[in-house]
């Protein structure tokens, strides 16, 4: 249906996408991924026939969609087979009345007038917008407008549907509605989707909720890979994430820093961890929750002895203090030339005024900040923190978690335990439960 041979679009200024060779068959759903400016929209516009009439540029190679060459035919002729929905619903809807907007493509394709009314009602119902039929488009919300735009794109039964960030302006229920409409399309309609909010799009089905095939672009618009979504994400996830793409939660963000397979730990005769598996990646923050006695601290202690040697913050920070003053505590174990970094960390954790105080004279929150600061100074690739927010007031807990979050954002793998579901979900990339000796 879509067939491309060395398809490449070159824009004024030297940007561009491709070359891409491949074909997309009837009913196939394809995701296009790439950092901002990679040329995803440009690719979709070219498929819709907008280059070069609407967007100046040069197209090389060959492209055909159901026998139409969009580059020669232009947007109007290509629209016989191709529907398009863009990210800005206000600019994508043209007329003042919803029904007229959806009828417009049918009139333009010379549908018989008596068939138009039923089709308008049918396609609006399909996108969950039947109730909007006689409304004025000026009075609709962004989400409602986007559904109308989708209905108009689907009205004339296109063979291919191009979706350029169709959910950019929508709330969660709007995203779900658009996704349901797309998944409920007739089986033979091919879909090409550019989407940033992959988690929202995938819904509770995770990776399985995404289109099964992905074309990944690098920051200059070259095709990194065109293949099964899971495989493409596994191979290029870290790179795409590093360039700023939003990826589904399941996709590793950076290189694996610590891999745990089939871990068994017993306390006395009681088996606590029974075949636990865990992958920690650079750049991510993983929170572990679980009932008292589930084995969280046991897990952290077990990991603390692995290599690369992780930094560890204990449930009770006092257990860790080794030096007489706050400053000395931070400098402990660092080379002599690290005084600047110590001063910077003092300022960052807000303890500059207490530099000469004994660590034990600090408040609970300050003690926690101090122990985390000391650990951060060692620049470990993996950081383990047991209940870092425990016993702190809200402000101190937030400061503590932010320090860890920053460390993750700078590339460390952070694992923490928590009983605070709200904080865990707010700060962590992944939240796992420790139950029956394994993580789920």
């Amino acid at each position, binding site marked *: 249906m879509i067939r491309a041979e060395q398809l490449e679009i070159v824009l004024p200024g030297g940007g561009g996408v491709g070359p891409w060779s491949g074909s997309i068959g009837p009913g196939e759903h394809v995701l296009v991924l790439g950092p901002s400016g990679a040329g995803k929209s440009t690719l979709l516009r070219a498929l819709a026939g907008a280059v070069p009439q609407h967007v*100046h540029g040069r197209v090389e190679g060959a492209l055909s969609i159901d026998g139409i060459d969009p580059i020669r035919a232009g947007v109007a002729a290509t629209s016989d087979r191709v529907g398009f929905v863009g990210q800005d619903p206000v600019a994508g809807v043209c007329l003042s009345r919803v029904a007229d907007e959806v009828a417009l493509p049918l009139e333009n394709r010379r549908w018989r007038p008596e068939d138009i009314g039923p089709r308008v009602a049918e396609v609006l119902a399909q996108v969950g917008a039947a109730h909007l039929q006689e409304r004025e488009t000026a009075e609709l919300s962004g989400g409602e407008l986007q559904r109308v735009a989708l209905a108009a794109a689907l009205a004339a039964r296109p063979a291919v549907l191009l979706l350029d960030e169709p959910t950019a302006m929508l709330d969660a229920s709007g995203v779900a509605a658009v996704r349901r409409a797309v998944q409920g399309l007739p089986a033979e309609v091919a879909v090409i989707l550019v989407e940033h909010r992959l988690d929202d799009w995938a819904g509770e089905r995770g990776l399985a909720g995404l289109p099964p095939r992905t074309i990944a672009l690098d920051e200059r618009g070259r095709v990194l890979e065109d293949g099964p979504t899971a495989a493409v994400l596994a191979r290029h996830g870290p790179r795409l994430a590093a360039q700023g793409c939003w990826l589904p939660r399941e996709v590793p963000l950076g290189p694996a820093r610590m891999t745990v397979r089939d871990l068994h730990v017993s306390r006395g005769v009681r088996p606590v961890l029974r075949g636990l598996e865990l992958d920690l990646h650079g750049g991510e923050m993983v929170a572990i929750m679980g009932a008292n006695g589930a084995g969280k601290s046991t897990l952290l202690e077990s990991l603390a002895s692995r290599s690369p040697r992780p930094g560890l913050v204990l449930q009770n920070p006092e257990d860790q203090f080794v030096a007489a003053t706050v400053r000395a505590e931070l400098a402990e174990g660092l080379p002599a030339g690290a005084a600047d970094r110590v001063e910077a960390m003092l300022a960052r954790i807000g303890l500059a005024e207490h530099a000469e105080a004994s660590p034990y004279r600090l408040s609970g929150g300050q003690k926690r900040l101090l122990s985390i600061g000391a650990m951060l100074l060692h620049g470990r690739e993996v950081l383990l923190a047991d209940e870092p927010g425990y016993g702190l007031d809200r402000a101190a807990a937030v400061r503590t978690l932010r320090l860890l979050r920053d460390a993750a954002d700078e590339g460390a793998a952070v694992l923490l335990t928590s009983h605070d579901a709200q904080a865990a979900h707010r700060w962590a990339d992944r939240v796992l439960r420790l139950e029956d000796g394994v993580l789920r």
Partner: protein
Amino acid sequence: MAAHTPTARLTLRDIVVIVVLGVVFGFLYWVFVQAWTALSILMGPLGDLTGNLLIGCWLLVAPIALAILRKPFVGVIAELLAAAVEVVFLGSPAGPLLLITGLIQGIGSEIPFALTRYRRYGAAVFLASGLCGAGLVFFWSAVRFGWLGQDILPLRLTLQLLSGALLGGLLARGIVRALEGTGVLANLRPAVAADELVRR
């Protein structure tokens, strides 16, 4: 590529751009009409002269559309569509007669651009466009509002020509240059020859 020779046929996008200009200027006139009313009251019995003083504002659309799209008849169509917007959507009290006014203004504004065969867009052409538009429509307005035989006819003509040159000519040019600076016109202008594009 037919990049530098103007093609007669307007694309849908050209038409939309012209309509957008008509809509935006129609709206802005409507916003600034308050100022106009204030001015006419200020001028007392000669308030009627403000029409001549501000005629240039109504001439802006044609030269701007011409300088953006650089195709024949764009100026005439732009004035006609701007008039249509005012008559149909904004309910202008001048009614459908405005369509005739628009036609005449458009023809006047377009003549100097047509004489350069749509190749030159310097200040002189804009100035001539404003003068021509204001001058041509003067005769029609004189019939419409019965100016012929009034003592102040020469004063009216002078004011109208001045306004045409300044507002309908030089202001139009300033707006076009400012638009060029923003980059919005990049895809509306004729393209650079495609084979000169190089991928980074």
